[in-house]
């Protein structure tokens, strides 16, 4: 087993232990979604199901969604839309369907079908819906997948701008399964490798790992920087599988209720995902071909009990 895969396995075990698969109480929905997504990625990278406990996480997340929805506490727009859609795919891979997520998809499709041009910020959502077998655009509608870089060099952009650019690339390439025009990525290919190095140097592991994935999505020639980043990230994993050493931030008091769920879980999911992307060149988060339309009769899949 390579160091990367061994690391991914330990990270998956951490996700499983800290967010839900062991019956832990008071795990917020946001954390359940993150853990489910991370575990699904790990399972697709080859981590044994017993480690990721994906099935249990999918069931717990489905139940949490149903519970919140029933009491009117589920606001899909408070979450990242792509994360919700990916979690729905993860649940369906386990044979579960979530009614609140199904309703969310319907609502989004209803909105995007009114558009003649889908703007870049929604491109990823629409492409993802298509891969899920939905029909999110009407005939003749165009999806604008252009990634708009900020004025001036990205090297001088703030973290929020870099994050937006990376999100744009993830959406427009559908997590690397579609190619962008070379002209759209030339500037990114020259600047993102050093941004990757510096964000990790600044100990922003989440943004650093996001940039790392983006380099794969734009097919940048950055083998050396990717190797440095991978080596660095592997060195930032604790024995229990989590990524990051944040005692300093926690001591300064960021007001986090639960360091594992609020800090280490999202960081670990992001790093795990990036390690999967770079250590398995053939890995694609989303398949190239559209999935078959979802099953009609609810009885064919496991729904909320």
């Amino acid at each position, binding site marked *: 087993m390579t160091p990367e895969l061994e690391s991914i396995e330990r990270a998956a075990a951490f996700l499983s232990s800290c967010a839900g698969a062991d019956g832990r109480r008071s795990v917020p929905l946001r954390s359940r979604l993150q853990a489910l997504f991370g575990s699904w990625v790990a399972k697709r990278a080859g981590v044994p199901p017993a480690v990721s406990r994906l099935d249990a996480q999918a069931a717990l997340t489905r139940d949490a969604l149903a519970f919140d929805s029933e009491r009117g506490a589920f606001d899909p727009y408070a979450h990242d839309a792509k994360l919700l859609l990916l979690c729905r795919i993860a649940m369906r891979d386990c044979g579960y369907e979530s009614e609140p997520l199904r309703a969310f998809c319907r609502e989004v499709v209803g909105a995007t079908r009114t558009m003649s041009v889908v703007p870049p910020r929604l491109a990823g959502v629409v492409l993802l819906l298509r891969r899920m077998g939905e029909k999110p655009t009407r005939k003749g509608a165009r999806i604008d997948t252009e990634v708009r870089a900020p004025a001036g060099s990205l*090297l001088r952009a703030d973290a929020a701008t870099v994050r937006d650019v990376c999100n744009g690339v993830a959406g427009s390439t559908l997590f690397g399964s579609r190619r962008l025009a070379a002209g759209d990525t030339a500037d990114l290919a*020259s600047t993102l490798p050093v941004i990757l190095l510096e964000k990790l140097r600044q100990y922003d592991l989440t943004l650093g790992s996001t940039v790392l994935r983006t380099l794969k999505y734009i097919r940048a020639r950055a083998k050396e920087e990717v190797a*440095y980043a991978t080596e660095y990230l592997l060195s930032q994993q604790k024995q229990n599988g989590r990524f990051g050493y944040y005692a300093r931030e926690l001591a300064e008091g960021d007001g986090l209720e639960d360091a594992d769920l609020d800090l280490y879980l999202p960081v670990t999911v992001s790093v795990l995902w990036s390690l999967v992307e770079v250590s398995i060149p053939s890995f694609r988060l989303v398949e190239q071909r559209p999935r078959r339309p979802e099953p009609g009769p609810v009885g064919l899949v496991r729904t909320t009990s």
Partner: protein
Amino acid sequence: MSRELPADVLEGALPWIERNLAHFDPFKDGELSGLCEIPLAELGILTLAAVRCSGPVDSAPVTRFLDALEAAYRDPRYEERPFREPETLVSHLIVAAALVHAGRVDVSSYQSSVARLVQASTLTAPALPPHRMMELRHALDLAGVEHSLPSYRRLYFSTLPARRVNPIFVAASEAYILTHVIFYAADLGCRRPVGLAERDRVRLGRLVEQLLGMHIVAGNWDLTAELILSARCLDHASAFADLGWECIAGAQRPDGAVPGPRNHPSGDTPLTPEEDVATCYHTTLVSSLAALAAINERVLAPAPR
């Protein structure tokens, strides 16, 4: 690379340094002690580069720099210091070299005295860190002092940049070690790097480029200038040098100073004039040094065997 911005930065920086020459005076705090000669030695490096530069350089401030160097050099208390405290020798050699290159002093007797000192003292014993040994050799060579130090190649092999370096782990202090090793090998851009094989030059060029991009992201103009100069020393065509110059020129104040990384008040109290100079002088000086290299119509001397 454009020469306009470096020339503009230089035009503002040299008069600022001239107006603040008192900061470089080793006697400004009384008797010579500790590291008091270092600012003067740094002024010596800048002056030497200005004297050797074939591009247009305002001679008025350079003449004042030489006057300041010569005044210190001719002070018996300054002259005797390395003979009583040999660890200060490098700073003195640089000052002597600048004055020799400007035709201000005849150092033939000084050279033989220093050669005896070097031979008799522990200076060349393997007590110094490898990059310091390289610095000593460079200073002895500049001042024309005979010595039996190992070749640049042998010295280089023991330094940090001779090994594979992951830039994410490189602390600022280590980045300065890298830049200085390159400066010594390339005699601040006046010769092809000595002691570096072609593969070393190419590899270090890549590393310098990565670090330059990282320090532009971080907004550290001191290391940005050092790394631009390093790229020049390595004959590395940097994709980030122009952006680096834009950043340095953008940071340069109307009075000509280029603020360093610590040029900001720690609390509500503004910096005193002395603190302001102390936190600007190095960045202003190294920006000038990089600018002189950028405007120099140099014909690189071959590397001596």
